C-alpha cells in the first residue's frame, strides 16, 4: 500500500499538525525520590503466611513472590527500561479532552504499512517493546522490506502516562474513536489495527465502527464466543455434548476462566476503586495482582519465570506503580462493564477484514468455526504452536511473523 503521505509532519520533533493540534515530545523520567520511596515500601513489606495448597489454586504463591520482591527491592533497575522506552520516539497529544501518550516509530522503508497497536491489562507499551524492531525494520530480522510497518503504540486512558480520566465514559468505543483520531492526526489516513486483551477489544470495536481508512484488524484474543455458548457458561454448565472436540477444549478453558479465574475482573468491573487502594499503597499488593495473571495467562505452565525475566515482569509492574495507575487502569474494566457482556463474547464484524492468530495458551483457544460466525470477512486464521496471552511479549519473533503474514494480502505491489 502507499505509505503515509510524504508531506506528513516529521514526528521526531514536537510539532503541530495541519489542524493545529499540538503533539509534544515526551520522555519517561521518574524522580529519584519515587524510586527510593518504592524501595522503602518494598523493604517494609508485611507478608502473609504461605498458602495452604501446593499449587496456584489459592493465587500467587508466597515462594514465587518472595524472591521477586527481594529482587525488586535490591537489584532491579528501573532506569534501564526507562532508557529503552526513551530510545523510541515518545509523544503526548490531547484527544477528546484527554492526554494520550504514544510511541510513534517510522519504518525506514517508505512503503511501510501504518499499524495501530494497542496493549492490554496488566500491560503497557512495555509488552510491545520487543516487536518494534522486527516490525519496523524487517530486513534486519529475516523478512523483506515489503513487510515493514510504521508503528503507533498508544497508551490506554488511565494507564501509564496517558491522562487519568476524571469523568466516566472512556469505554472501548470512545477509546477506539480517539485512537482513530490519533492515526489521522499523525497523517495515516489508511492503516491497520492490532491488539490482544484490551487491544483486541479496542481493535474489534474500531472494526465495528469501521471508520474510513481502517483497512483491517489483527487480534490475538478474538471475541468469538456465541450467545448459545455464553448461556451455558454463565451458569457453569459442563460442555454441551454437541460441541466438537475443539469447541469443547475452548469451552472448558472458558469455564475455568469464568469459574476459577474471574475474581480480578469481577472486582474491577464492579469496584475498581476498592481494589485501587491496595494497588496505590502497596507494591506487593500490585505485584501479586499482576503476577497472578502473568502466571495464569502466559505459555509457561503457571511458571512465568520460564518465559519472562524478573526484569521484564518488574518493568511492567513498576510502570503501573510509578504512574499510580492501579485504580485508573482498573476503571477501564468498570467502563466496559457498563455495557454488559464479556471479553470473549462474539463481536459482530460484518465487513472489515479480520485476521486472527490463535496462541495456544491464550485464555481460550478460539475455534475457527466460532470466528467464522462472528467475523464476516475472516481474511487470515492461523493457530500457532507456542505463546500465550502476552503473545507480543512472550514470542516477539513469531508474533511479528504472524502480523506480516496476516496483512500481506493488503499491501500493494
Amino acid at each position: 500500500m502507499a505509505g503515509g503521505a510524504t508531506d506528513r509532519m516529521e514526528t521526531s520533533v514536537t510539532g503541530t499538525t495541519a489542524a493545529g493540534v499540538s503533539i509534544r515530545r515526551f520522555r519517561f523520567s521518574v524522580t529519584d525520590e519515587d524510586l527510593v520511596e518504592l524501595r522503602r515500601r518494598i523493604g517494609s513489606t508485611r507478608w502473609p503466611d504461605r498458602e495452604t495448597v501446593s499449587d496456584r489454586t489459592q493465587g500467587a504463591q508466597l515462594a514465587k513472590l518472595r524472591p521477586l520482591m527481594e529482587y525488586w527491592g535490591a537489584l532491579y533497575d528501573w532506569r534501564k527500561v526507562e532508557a529503552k522506552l526513551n530510545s523510541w520516539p515518545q509523544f503526548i497529544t490531547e484527544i477528546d479532552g484527554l492526554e494520550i501518550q504514544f510511541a510513534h516509530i517510522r519504518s525506514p522503508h517508505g512503503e511501510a504499512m501504518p499499524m495501530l497497536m494497542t496493549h492490554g491489562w496488566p500491560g503497557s507499551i512495555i509488552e510491545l517493546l520487543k516487536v518494534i524492531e522486527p516490525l519496523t525494520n524487517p530486513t534486519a530480522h529475516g523478512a523483506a522490506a515489503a513487510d515493514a510497518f510504521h508503528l503507533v503504540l498508544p497508551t490506554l486512558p488511565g494507564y501509564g502516562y496517558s491522562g487519568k480520566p476524571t469523568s466516566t465514559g472512556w469505554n472501548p468505543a470512545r477509546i477506539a474513536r480517539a485512537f482513530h483520531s490519533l492515526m489521522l492526526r499523525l497523517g495515516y489516513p489508511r492503516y491497520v489495527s492490532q491488539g490482544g486483551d484490551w487491544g483486541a477489544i479496542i481493535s474489534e470495536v474500531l472494526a465495528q465502527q469501521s471508520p474510513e481508512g481502517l483497512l483491517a484488524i489483527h487480534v490475538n484474543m478474538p471475541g468469538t464466543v456465541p450467545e448459545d455458548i455464553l448461556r451455558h457458561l454463565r451458569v457453569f454448565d459442563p460442555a454441551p455434548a454437541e460441541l466438537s472436540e475443539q469447541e469443547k477444549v475452548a469451552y472448558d478453558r472458558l469455564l475455568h476462566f469464568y469459574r476459577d479465574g474471574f475474581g480480578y475482573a469481577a472486582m474491577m468491573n464492579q469496584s475498581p476503586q476498592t481494589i485501587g487502594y491496595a494497588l496505590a499503597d502497596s507494591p506487593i499488593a500490585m505485584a501479586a495482582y499482576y503476577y497472578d495473571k502473568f502466571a495464569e495467562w502466559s505459555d509457561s505452565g503457571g511458571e512465568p519465570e520460564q518465559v519472562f525475566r524478573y526484569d521484564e515482569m518488574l518493568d511492567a509492574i513498576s510502570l503501573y506503580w510509578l504512574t499510580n495507575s492501579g485504580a485508573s487502569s482498573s476503571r477501564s474494566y468498570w467502563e466496559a462493564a457498563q455495557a454488559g457482556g464479556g471479553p470473549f463474547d462474539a463481536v459482530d464484524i460484518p465487513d472489515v477484514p479480520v485476521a486472527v492468530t490463535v496462541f495456544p495458551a491464550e485464555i481460550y483457544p478460539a475455534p475457527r468455526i466460532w470466528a467464522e460466525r462472528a467475523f464476516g470477512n475472516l481474511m487470515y486464521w492461523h493457530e500457532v504452536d507456542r505463546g500465550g496471552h502476552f503473545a507480543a511479549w512472550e514470542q516477539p519473533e513469531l508474533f511479528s511473523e504472524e502480523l506480516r503474514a496476516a496483512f500481506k494480502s493488503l499491501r500493494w505491489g
Partner: protein
Amino acid sequence: MNDKSSGQASTLTKQEIRPFRINIAEGDLADLQRRIGATRLPTKELVADRSQGVQLATIQALARYWSTDYDWRKCEAKLNALPQFKTEIDGLDVHFIHVKSQHKNAMPLIMTHGWPGSVIELLETIGPLTDPTAHEGAAEDAFHVVLPSLPGYGFSGQPIEVGWDLGRTARAWAELMNRLGYTRYVAQGGDVGAGVTDAMGRQAPEGLIGIHTNLLVPALGGTMPTNTDEERAAAAQIATFQKSGEGYFIEMATRPQTIGYALLDSPVALAAWMADHDTDAYYKIARAFVEGQPSGNLTRDHILDNITLYWLTGTGATTARSYWEAYGPDAPAARQQPLPPPTIPFAFTTFPGEIWRTPRTWVEASYPNVIYFHEVDKGGHFAAWEEPELLSSELRAAFRSLR
C-alpha cells in the same frame, strides 16, 4: 500478642481450656500508625456514589480518624474485661469469649460472627443476652454466651492445611460446647456465622436443640421461588448484588492468597476491602466517618476496632481463605455432597437492610422445621453489631419455645 496461658506446662493437655488475654506490642501499633501516615491514595472515583467501590472521601475520613482519635487500647481493655479463652480443637487453637449468665437456667448459646466481622460485632449483645433483667428482658430470657473466633480470624489459629470448611468448623463448635459442659444448647449466626450455624443444624450434634440465623444460607446457592412480589423483589436484590457487589466474594473464593498480600501490607487496602461488603452497610459506614452519623452501634470506633483487629492479627489472607474453603470451586468442600436441611427447630429474623429481604416463604422452602420467623424494622447485614438490643430480643423470642 501474648498468649497468657496460666496453666502449668506439665498439666497441659489438648483438651485444656486456657485463659487468654490480648496484649498488642506497642511497636505493632506504631507500625500501623506509620503505615497509615504513609498511605498513597489513588485518584478519586469518577462517580458520586458507591458504584465504583469505596469512595475516596470515605477512606480519607476513615484514615484520618484512625490516625488521630482512634485508640486500640480501649478495645483491647474491653475484650480483656471479658472472660476469653483458647482451646485446641481438631489441631487448631480456637479463641472464644465465654460469658455465663447469673441466671441459673440460662440457655447456652454459641454465636458465630462472619466476614468481615469478628467477635467485635457481637460484643454489645453480651449484656442483653446474659443479663436480660438489666435490658428489658426477664430472667427466663437469659443465655450463657459462647463467642468463638472462626479459624483464621482474630485470635484463633490460622490453619496451615486445607479443609477448614464450614462443616469442619461446625463440628469444632459442637466439640467446644461439649468441652464447656453444655449438653443442651442453641446456635446463632449471620453471614459466614450463618453458614456455620446452618452446617451445625444439618449435622445435628447431640445437644443442639435449635438454630437461628439472620442470613438465609440456602438462598446463596440454590434457586428460590419467585411467585410473589416479595419473592421477586428478594431475587432481584440478589441479582443486583451479583452484578454490582460480589467482586470481593469471587476474589476471595478463588484467589485468597493474591488479595491476601494487599490485606497484610496496606492498612487502607484492608479498610477499603472490609468496608465494601454490601450497599446498606457501606453507606452506614461511610456516613459514620464522613458525617459522624453512626447507624445504631455501628460507630467509627467499633468499625475501626474490627478493622484494627484484622490488621494486628495479620489475618487478611487467612480470613479470605475461609471463602475459598467455603465457596471456592477448587476447595475440597466443593466436591462434597451437601447434607440435607436441618430437621431441628429453625428460627429466622429478616433485617430490612440485609443484602436481600428474605420472605417467610423462602425460609419455609429452605428449612422443614421453622419455629420462628419475624421481620424487624431496622438493621442490616451486621444485625448483631448494628442493633444489638434488637437482635437480642429476637433471640429471646426465637428460642422461647425451646426452654
